[in-house]
C-alpha cells in the first residue's frame, strides 16, 4: 500500500498525469464530443460516473482474482465486468430516473468500452491503491477528463469565429490544439513533489 495523500492522488490523476493529455487515453470522445461546452460537460459527467463504477468494480474484482491466484485475468475480466456493470446501471437509471437517463443516455454506451476507463482500472491495481484511494483516483481522473474536454470545447467554440487557413480547418486544427494543450499540461510535471 502506498502512502500518498488522497489530495496528491487527486491532483496526480487530474493534472499531472491527465488521462487525455498525458496518457492519451480516451482520445475518441475528446475529439468527438468537444464541439460544444454543454455536451462536453455532460460527457465529462458521464465519464466521471462510469470511472467511479469501474474503479469500485476493479477493486473488488482484483481482490477476488488474487484470492483464486489468477491475477493474469485482470485485463479480460475488467472489460467484461465494467461493460456489463455499466449496462446494468444504465437500465437502472432508465427505470429510476428518466431525466438523468436523457442527460447521460447517449453517452453511457459510448464510454463503456473506452480505453480511459480500462486504463483507470489497470493503473489503480498496478499502483496498489486501496478502496478509498481508488475512488479518489477515479474522481481525479474524471475531473481531469472533464477539464480537458471543457478546455477543448471552449477553444473550438472560439475557433469557429477565427479566420483560419483553409488547409487547417476541422480535424487538423483540433489535433494541433490537442498537441499544444498536451504540451502545456506537461508543465504540471513535478507538481506536488
Amino acid at each position, binding site marked *: 500500500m502506498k502512502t500518498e495523500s488522497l489530495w496528491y492522488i487527486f491532483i496526480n490523476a487530474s493534472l499531472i498525469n491527465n488521462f487525455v493529455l498525458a496518457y492519451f487515453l480516451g482520445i475518441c470522445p475528446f475529439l468527438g464530443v468537444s464541439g460544444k461546452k454543454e455536451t462536453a460537460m455532460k460527457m465529462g459527467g458521464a465519464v466521471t460516473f462510469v470511472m467511479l463504477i469501474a474503479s469500485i468494480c476493479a477493486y473488488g474484482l482484483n481482490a477476488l482474482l488474487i484470492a483464486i*491466484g*489468477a491475477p493474469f*485475468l485482470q485485463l479480460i*475480466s475488467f472489460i*467484461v465486468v465494467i461493460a*456489463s456493470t455499466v449496462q446494468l446501471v444504465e437500465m437502472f437509471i432508465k427505470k429510476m430516473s428518466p431525466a438523468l437517463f436523457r442527460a447521460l443516455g447517449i453517452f453511457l454506451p459510448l464510454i463503456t468500452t473506452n480505453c480511459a476507463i480500462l486504463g483507470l482500472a489497470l493503473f489503480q491495481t498496478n499502483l496498489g491503491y486501496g478502496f478509498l484511494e481508488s475512488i479518489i483516483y477515479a474522481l481525479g481522473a474524471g475531473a481531469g477528463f472533464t477539464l480537458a474536454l471543457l478546455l477543448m470545447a471552449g477553444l473550438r467554440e472560439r475557433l469557429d*469565429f477565427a479566420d483560419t487557413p483553409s488547409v487547417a480547418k476541422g480535424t487538423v486544427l483540433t489535433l494541433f490544439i490537442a498537441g499544444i494543450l498536451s504540451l502545456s499540461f506537461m508543465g504540471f510535471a513535478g507538481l506536488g513533489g
Partner: protein
Amino acid sequence: MMTILIALAALGCLTLVLAILLIAANKKLHVVEDPRIDTVEAMLPSVNCGACGYPGCRQFAEALVAGKALPGKCSVSTDETRVAIARFLGVALGAEEKRVARLACAGGTNVARNRARYHGVKSCQAASLVSGGGKACFWGCLGYGDCEAVCDFDAITMNAFALPVVDVDKCTACGDCVEVCPKDLFSLHPVSHRLWVNCKNLGQGEAVLEECQVACTACGKCAMDAADNLITMVNNLPVVNYSKNHHTRIPIQRCPTGAIVWLDDQLGAIKGTESKKIVRKGQRRAGIT
C-alpha cells in the same frame, strides 16, 4: 494445466453470473413505453426544430400521447398530417394561428450608413463582436446573413440591400433566426399582426436619420394619436399593444419616416402615404454629410 483450468472456470463463472444478472435486470427493470409514441413520432416531420416548445419530435410525440400537447402545435407538418395525428390519438386538433418570424429593421444598404468598414469573417455574430459591427445604427441589421444560413427551411433570403426577407409560406416559426441574430431583430408573431414597427433604433431626434433614413426618430406622433393606447413609446420606440384592436392602418400614416408599416401578403411592407419616399437603388455613402 491447473492454471488453465482456474482461468477457464473463473471466466466462465464470471460471465455466467453477469449474464444472469443482466437478464434478470432486463426483466425487472424493463421500461414499458407506449407503442403509440413510435407511431406518432413516425408521422411527425423529424426535423427536431423545436417550434412546438419541446426539444425534438420524440419529446413532442411523448407529450402528444400523454395528452399534454395538441397536434396543432407542430407548425412544420402539413394540415393533413396534423389531422391524421389528431384522429389517430382521438384528440382535438388544437389548431393555432400560423406564426412567422418578423424582422424589426428596414435599414438596407440603400438607406443606412456604415461608420466603419468591416473586413473580418462574413458573419453577423463575428461582426457584432467588433464594437457592434460596421453599421452606423448600432441596433440595425448587419446583413451578413447568419439567419439565412441557419434557416433549415430556406425561408430566409437576403435581398439586394442585404436585408433578410422571410418567406411567410416556408417559415415554420422554429425560432432559429431569433436565436442566431446578434442584434435580436427577429421575433415570432402571428401572421395577423400586420401593424409592425420596423425599427429597433433606441436613439431620439433627427440625428438618427444620419444613421438610417427609415429609422424611428422617437417623435411620438404615432403614440399621441393612437386610440385606446394601441401604441405607447417605450425606450424611444413605439410598442404596439396587440391585445388592442391592431387591425388598423392609421398609425402608418402618422409616421414621418415610414418606420411603422403595414405588412401585406402580396405587397410586402406598406408605408404611410406622407412618409418620405426613398428611391435610391445604390449604396448610401458612408461618412457625415
